[in-house]
């Protein structure tokens, strides 16, 4: 395929143009995070300024940011780990010892993901209140584990499916026990897949905003709900909002970029690879 120089330039301009437009709000937020409050709300916008870190220190000191950040870390890490522990055996069983019902079970698991959160808001809310899970890290961790379980099982299942059967058979013929085979062969082979499954589960729970807003008030509030508290109209703290947002979005953005290829598989339940 021959392309003229003009075509090449057009392709590059189009590609970069689209990307910069999409990323613009994030870039603009990043700039605002380093402005003073006055510069952040000034119109016409200030493009050249001496960057300041005072928003970050303000967010850390006054807004008790580390508390909310740790909530997010604990809840996401905990729920991801739990979901992984519960899913690994199930995915293994379904991928390597399939029965007639395996397909139905998989599809049924997927269908539990289709339940709209808002449809069960009332019972969950009342249950959380009556058993004292409201505004606890344990409550939200359990919630996110359940929400992510179907996706984690599915993703692990598709990764296990991709392992060439000959390798596993050879190991069994060599006298390896199923558990040995699982630890020594399967886990190392599928480690990249397992890692991206974990990343996806972490991303999803990090950004989950429905349950975090409704099931936490202050003690267990993760970042999504904390940022929501900036929506109150009194006082426009744009620079501080941007600084807090940048800190909340930054780590997960890196995770997202690391796992972008496997993301498609996870989010479409293996329908697109």
């Amino acid at each position, binding site marked *: 395929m021959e392309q003229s120089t003009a075509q090449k330039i057009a392709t590059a301009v189009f590609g970069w143009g689209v990307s910069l437009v999409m990323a613009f709000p994030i870039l603009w937020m990043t700039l605002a995070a380093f402005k003073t409050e006055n510069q952040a709300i000034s119109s016409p916008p200030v493009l050249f300024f001496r960057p300041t870190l005072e928003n970050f220190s303000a967010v850390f000191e006054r807004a008790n940011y580390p508390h909310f950040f740790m909530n997010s870390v604990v809840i996401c890490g905990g729920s991801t780990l739990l979901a992984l522990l519960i899913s690994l055996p199930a995915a293994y069983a379904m991928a390597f010892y399939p029965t007639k019902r395996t397909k139905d079970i998989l599809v049924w698991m997927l269908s539990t993901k*289709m339940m709209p959160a808002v449809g069960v808001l009332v019972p969950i809310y009342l249950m959380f209140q009556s058993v004292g899970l409201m505004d606890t890290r344990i409550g939200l961790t359990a919630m996110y584990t359940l929400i992510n379980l179907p996706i984690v099982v599915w993703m692990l299942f598709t990764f296990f499916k991709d392992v060439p059967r000959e390798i596993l058979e050879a190991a069994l013929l060599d006298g390896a026990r199923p558990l040995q085979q699982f630890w020594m062969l399967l886990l190392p082979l599928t480690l990249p897949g397992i890692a991206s499954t974990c990343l996806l589960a972490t991303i999803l729970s990090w950004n989950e905003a*429905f349950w975090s807003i409704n099931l936490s008030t202050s003690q267990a509030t993760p970042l999504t709900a904390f940022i929501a508290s900036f929506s109150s109209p009194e006082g426009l703290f744009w620079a501080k909002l941007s600084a807090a947002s940048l800190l909340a979005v930054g780590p997960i953005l890196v995770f997202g970029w690391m796992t972008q290829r496997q993301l498609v598989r996870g989010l479409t339940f293996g329908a697109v690879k």
Partner: protein
Amino acid sequence: MSQNQAKTVAVISDEGPLINTKPLMAPSVILLFIWMIVPLAMTLWFSVRRYNLLDPSSTSFAGFDNYTFLLTDPTLLHALQNTIVLVVGVLAATIIFGVACAMALDAPFPGRGIARLLCIAPFFVMPTVSALIWKNLLMHPVNGLFSWMLKSVGLPAIDWFSDYPLISVGIIVAWQWIPFATLILLTSLQSLDREQVEAARMDGARGWTLFTNITLPHLYRSMTIVVMIETIFLLSVFAEILVTTSGGPGEATTTLPFLIYKTALLDYDVGGASAGGVVAIVLANIVAFFLVRTIAHNLER
């Protein structure tokens, strides 16, 4: 494939212990089963009860009163209408812009990897952050960047969330979901048969003709998947509305999820909110039915 599987099973039963898979499956199956049944049953139960949290002692059987009230209440119809407008609008936007972005990022150009990362970045931004950044930094009627841009070309500033509330929410949600469509369509584009494209080129197909006759049909399947998966998520858009408009002005951005939230946690009407929840579940299940069928079909290949 199935022969291969049969062989594996045979090998295992001959050489090693045939493991019992039930204990391996049990934790996830039991957990998901409880997670599916218990809240659903409770929602159904509450939806036929007269139950207000402000007066929890006087609950009673209400029959279909909650439903009759809900279905004859113009608020629900309005909320349903808003939900559908939002979902359909965002779907259309994400498909159109998703295809455009995917096409733009499929062709090779210097720095394409970084450009791709930038383009999909919005998907990883938490909904409350994106909503507040758009609402304040960009769409604020006085200090926002958009109003400055409009003013600098001599147009009057737009008060986005007062004058076009649903569209404004839609823009934010679409911005979050375009990367999702882009990512999936981009993956799908990479499996496009290059020889077929070359052949079509030889036959003189160019630009638009090539796109509509070769590329678009190839993308059709992934587009269906994007539409179905996004619908599931878009039907429960909540945080973006809460932090930008809180359902207002009036009821202009009150969608079904937001209405249920309001009924339950602001009006404490458990019965009414549960009836709304049942409506939401029915709606989502209509879409889910088709989605699950597509994916199950895929599993067989």
